[in-house]
């Protein structure tokens, strides 16, 4: 590894995906200026925890953190995988930590069996339900499906936490090329509504009010009421509704809403429903929250042109595309999907895969 190949970035934003790109490409990364102007400068506890988790998952990674905590240097090792247990802090939910692991796990040496403890459902990140029902099926598009599991053993609502999830991921040699340009029409809507340590009727109330809007559109709607009791319901009360819509071409759109103090469950459900409908209206084959994951897997595909149709990129996705160009040297070609239709904002993202092969994997 040449010394000159260290990539430098600044600011605490886009922290996770830069670390993931570094580990996968093998190029060391230096991030400076992390909250240097803030009252509490430097890395936050969840970021340090994430670095610790990445250290556990990989073998030979060297992480250097500056004295003030405003700069880090990561020299990546190989992704080892295997059985792991990790306790997440109560400041961010389990989804924050799972997302980078999902990106890394298929390229590990051994199949990852990661148990994470902490908060399972949160405002800021994807909840464990959505990860299980939407994020992981996106991996199936790339040929990673056999043995892919996310078990929600216990639920934990903020601020107490107490949840536990187990993530199992198989290893693959190479990721398949994606060609997903047909969004299709929505054929089915599913939802998971859960309530922990509160009146179980809240779950039913959310389902009823969500149905009051969704019933107008298609008949195939089923909202499941997930019940966890006793030990498995965590330490704090809370409830949430996660919705997902599946199209005829198996494109998934998702949305969710979690409980807030003083807000009725019906309003939470309406919030989630309206968010789902707005996601569907944006169009494309992949919704906004999973744009990065899909683009990432497209880059790592075989040396062939991969194509995907999505809505306009979010600022996070835009920065992600820039960083991919820095790490892997691949740039995307983004064209409007239908030049004749002016009102549709769908874009087709195509790229030439790098042909990344999982050289770590144990062949025995």
């Amino acid at each position, binding site marked *: 590894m040449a010394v000159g190949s260290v990539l430098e970035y600044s600011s605490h934003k886009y922290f996770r995906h830069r670390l993931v790109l570094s580990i996968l490409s093998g190029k060391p990364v230096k991030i400076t200026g992390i909250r240097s102007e803030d009252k509490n400068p430097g890395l936050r506890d969840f970021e340090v925890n994430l670095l610790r988790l990445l250290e556990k998952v990989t073998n030979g990674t060297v992480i250097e953190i500056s004295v003030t905590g405003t700069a880090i240097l990561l020299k990546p090792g190989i992704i080892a995988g295997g059985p792991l247990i990790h306790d997440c802090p109560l400041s961010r939910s389990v989804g924050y930590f799972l997302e980078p692991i999902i990106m890394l796990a298929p390229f590990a040496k051994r199949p990852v069996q990661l148990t994470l403890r902490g908060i399972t459902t949160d405002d800021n990140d994807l909840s464990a339900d959505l990860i299980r*029902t939407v994020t992981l*099926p996106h991996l199936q598009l790339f040929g990673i499906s056999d043995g*892919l599991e996310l078990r929600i053993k216990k639920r934990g609502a903020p601020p107490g936490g107490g949840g536990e999830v187990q993530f199992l991921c198989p290893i693959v040699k190479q990721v398949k090329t994606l060609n997903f340009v047909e969004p299709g029409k929505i054929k089915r809507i599913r939802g998971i509504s859960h309530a922990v340590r509160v009146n179980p009727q809240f779950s039913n109330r959310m389902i009823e009010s969500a149905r009051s809007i969704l019933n107008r559109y298609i008949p195939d709607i*089923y909202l499941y009421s997930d019940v966890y009791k006793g030990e498995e319901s965590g330490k704090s009360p809370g409830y949430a509704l996660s919705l997902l819509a599946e199209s005829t071409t*198996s494109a998934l759109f998702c949305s969710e809403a979690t409980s807030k103090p003083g807000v009725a469950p019906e309003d939470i459900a309406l919030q989630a429903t309206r968010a789902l409908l707005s996601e569907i209206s944006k169009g494309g084959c992949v919704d906004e929250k999973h744009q990065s994951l899909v683009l990432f897997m497209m880059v790592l595909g075989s040396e062939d042109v991969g194509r995907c149709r999505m809505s306009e990129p979010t600022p996070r996705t835009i920065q992600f595309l820039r960083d991919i160009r820095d790490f892997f040297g691949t740039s995307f070609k983004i064209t409007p999907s239908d030049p004749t239709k002016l009102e549709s904002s769908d874009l087709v993202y195509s790229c030439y895969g790098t042909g990344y092969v999982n050289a770590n994997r144990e062949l025995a």
Partner: protein
Amino acid sequence: MSDHDELLSILQAHGQKFLSSFDGGISTSRRKGNVQSSIEEIEEEEEEDEEWQGIQTNSISESDEDLDENDDDFTAASSSTSDANVIVFSDKTAAPNQKWDATTKLQGKAFMSSKISKMRENTLPHTKNPTLEETEEDLKERSNIQNDALLHKLVHTQLLSGSLNPELELTPAQRRKALSGRIVELAGDAKLGRGERLVRTAEHNKASKRVREGLVQKQKERKAARLEETKNLGNYHPTLKRLLDPDLETAKPKKRVRGLQMGVGSFKDGTLRLSRREIDSVQGHKGGTSGRGSGRGGWKKRPRK
């Protein structure tokens, strides 16, 4: 006010008509005259009724006619109010399109399962197909078991003790015994492969005492020699005892019955299973006075299961 009175009188007339329909039509002509049908529609209806009744006078009785008349009047009176806005309150949560059948349950289980490969409901949901349809693996497994059974049958019937096989060079006596052994197996008196042995032991029993005892002695010696041979070769294991000694094969260890065998019912799977008779025997018969005579024989002991 005159309108109001008119309406009142119409209402009263209607009420009277309705009540009179239960009397059985005492004097219809009088009632027809009493009807103050100032509204033309009712008159028209009546005329129509009369016409209609005229056609049907042969078949129906007068009370039916009255009923029909009353019914028609009733609809005529209310026809003017039929264009009110109808608001239907329906409970959408009842979800008439959600038939709770096995498919929905299967889909639900698939959706909520932690395995992502099962979650994708790409295949159409089967209703009873998992039990009726056979997957390839099932077929393979069944054919394997079938093959095992077939092999066992063949080995014990044709391949080894084939009495008709000329290659074996059986003497007539051996052939006869092999055939009779096969027949005994087919008859079900012996397990597969043991028929000839049964026939031979039966013949041994017919021999004289000295011959019999000599045969038994020789058998014992041969068994001991075989056992020593396997032990010397290193092929022996205590679990093979049944294989080496054919007499022990039939002796199967019976399950020791636990408990004192007193009390009613059987205790299985964490529950005490009682039959109706057992409950009655403890509680006492319901038809006590009538049945007591027959039950006087004493405390009947039921056979233990």
